[in-house]
């Protein structure tokens, strides 16, 4: 079969069409979703009043801390007394600090590796679990453990695995004649170790998201593509990935937020050290407020983080909408 035929078969498959023509899927995609529902004025008012208590609660629960944080970020006080108004001085101080940019750089790498590392591992395992392997159920449970085990426990376990020259992993390296790497004492290795730990903690979440998305893909689509001569790689890139794109973008948004806001993974394993090598923005904000007692600059860092997260989330959300339209 020619590649042209395979491509057209894959295109049909992605649209959820069987080789012979439109099937049930066409109704799913086209039937009724574009219909604009018109609500009567009275119904709209009812919805409004029903929603109002929840909206008020949400505004109070989320709005009050946000406003108070805004006040703290523009003042020079403490946690008890907000102090004097200083305008954007705290933001200027933070943005001119090398420590902030170093932490921002680490946060960026930590997030990139955390999101895509855990996604790749999760995707690989989700695909593996889709095949019929012996004791697949047991594997699923075991693979969920890193996500389920409390981070305090897993960080302690990782510490014992790598912290000292006599720990298990450095001992293995030594016995293999590869020297004795100081995984948490060397600034570069510590940064790598924290990212690996994050991937280890996060891949089960990705695996679950992708498994759920894969479960919804009709297997006849693959059969159709196969009949049209598509290779396994073509099926993966042209069917699997597009079909799980929506879940992928959602999981990327969530994992980006998890990574940028992640405090315990870093703080429990390295405390942000050595020499700030693993200090992320959230760790820096914590240290500023609770160790240096610099409330204004610390909250300013948190504000800048939130702003960045909103921008990234909006971008990824647009990608979701785009993938839905496609």
């Amino acid at each position, binding site marked *: 079969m020619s590649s042209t035929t395979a491509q057209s078969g894959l295109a049909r498959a992605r649209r959820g069409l069987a080789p012979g023509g439109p099937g049930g899927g066409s109704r799913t995609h086209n039937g009724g979703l574009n219909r604009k529902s018109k609500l009567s004025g009275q119904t709209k008012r009812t919805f409004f009043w029903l929603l109002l208590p929840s909206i*008020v*609660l949400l505004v*109070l629960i989320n709005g009050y801390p946000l406003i108070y944080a805004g006040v703290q970020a523009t003042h020079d006080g403490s*946690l008890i*007394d907000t102090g004097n108004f200083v305008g954007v001085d705290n933001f200027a101080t933070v943005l001119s600090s090398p420590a902030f940019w170093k932490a921002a750089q680490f946060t960026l790498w930590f997030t990139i590796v955390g999101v895509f590392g855990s996604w790749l591992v999760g995707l690989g395992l989700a695909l593996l679990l889709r095949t019929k392997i012996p004791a697949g159920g047991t594997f699923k449970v075991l693979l969920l453990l890193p996500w389920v085990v409390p981070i305090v426990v897993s960080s302690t376990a990782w510490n014992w695995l790598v912290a000292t020259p006599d720990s298990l992993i450095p001992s293995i390296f030594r016995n293999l004649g590869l020297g004795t790497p100081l995984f948490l*004492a060397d600034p570069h290795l510590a940064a790598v170790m924290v990212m690996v730990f994050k991937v280890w903690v996060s891949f089960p979440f990705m695996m679950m998201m992708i498994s759920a998305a894969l479960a919804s893909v009709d297997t006849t689509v693959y059969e159709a593509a196969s009949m049209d001569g598509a290779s396994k790689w073509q099926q993966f890139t042209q069917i699997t990935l597009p079909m799980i794109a929506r879940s992928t973008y959602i999981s990327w948004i969530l994992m980006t937020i998890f990574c940028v806001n992640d405090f315990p993974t870093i703080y429990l394993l390295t*405390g942000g050290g050595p*020499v700030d090598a693993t200090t992320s923005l959230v760790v820096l904000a914590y240290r500023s407020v609770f160790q240096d*007692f*610099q409330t204004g600059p610390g909250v300013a860092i948190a504000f800048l983080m939130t702003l960045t997260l909103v921008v990234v989330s909006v971008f990824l959300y647009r990608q979701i909408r785009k993938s839905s339209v496609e």
Partner: protein
Amino acid sequence: MNVQSEAKRNFSRRGFLGLTAAAAAVPLLAACGGGSSSSSAGGAIKFWDMPWATTAYNDAAKKITDGFSGANSKASYQIIQWNNFYQTFSSAIASKTGPAVSTGGGFQAFQFEQQGQIAYADKVVDALKKNGQFDDFLPGVLEPFKSDKGYVAVPWQLDMRPLWYRKSLFDQAGVAVPTDWPSLLEAGKKLKGIGAVGFATGSGAGNNIGNHLMIMMMINNGGGVFTKDGQLDVMNDRNVEATEFLLELVSNGIIDPAAVSYTSDNLDAQWKNKKAAFGMYVLGVPQRVGDTSGDLMVASPMAGPHGDKATLVFPNNIMMYKNTPSQDASEAFLTYYMGQLKTLWQQKLMNALPVFKSITELPEFASDPNNVKIVKEYQPIAKTFAAQGTSLNANLAVLDGGQALNQFTQTILTGKTDAKSALTAFQSGLQSVLKK
């Protein structure tokens, strides 16, 4: 009329909305009311205490608290975890739901005094003078708490940083326990030869021992971070000398090259597993690591190159807050509690030195030769973070837990610096966060 329409009539949409709004309003109103509640409901003195030792300690402290009845008042006991304790105290004080009396961080009283929240303890000190406890204080433990306005808090235990050694490792290496810096260097090299750590420390997640070691070595050399009048003085010659010596220990492998990442657990394991031969640590190391064979012992204080001898101490204290149902009751409670402290040492619940001479003479305390040595040899030469100064202040909290000291420590322990560069960065880091 059918059942459905009857129900519809009885439970209208407006009724439902009203009910929902009312339900939403209840927690809101409750939350609004929270801020104005008194610090101590029902007039009882709220005493907040930290988990200073095992749970048995907190049980005993609660029992003491429950036994208070003075100034027409009672007291309630609350454990506050160390995690985010400053936030816990700050939030509670800001919302006027905080304690009337508390233990806490070593410099916490001065931080809250700066913010106008502390009730001075002069009347408690007067009461201690009357009941004889004032004269029972070990020398120099009360003075650091006296400010221009009065006593900010009252000390109740001393968190000392003595030097410890494992005798069997020194025997194995055939070297004497260090008495000064040159002998530490010599012993460290021989101990390294048998695979032992000559100067154990750690500066990993949540471990402050490395930070304390840096300051201890500075004041052991007659230096320190502050002058007698409390001015920042990081770059003095004694500090440079001490830092150069620490870097020499690192470059010779006498300080473990991985120490920068060691948590308290890692450090405990080194002492327990006969890897650590010598080092500055907390009180009660044998009990802490589960080796009471007598092999782990307190060493005598080392002399610096100029003959100075000093170690670091954190005088932990009990403070009173202005937000109290009765200041008289707060003072009565604190005076009562100070009088009951000995029972904590009698039950061997404390992992710290007492502040009263009479407690150091209790058989339960004096039966441990390490305790006796610490009281006899370390307590008289111990200095606080204030170094050459005598009084404590809020800035010391920034030094103790702040990023500047931690970064300095980790820079030294990685060994990739020189003394003056590291101290310059330390000074500039401190200057940027210290209150003028």
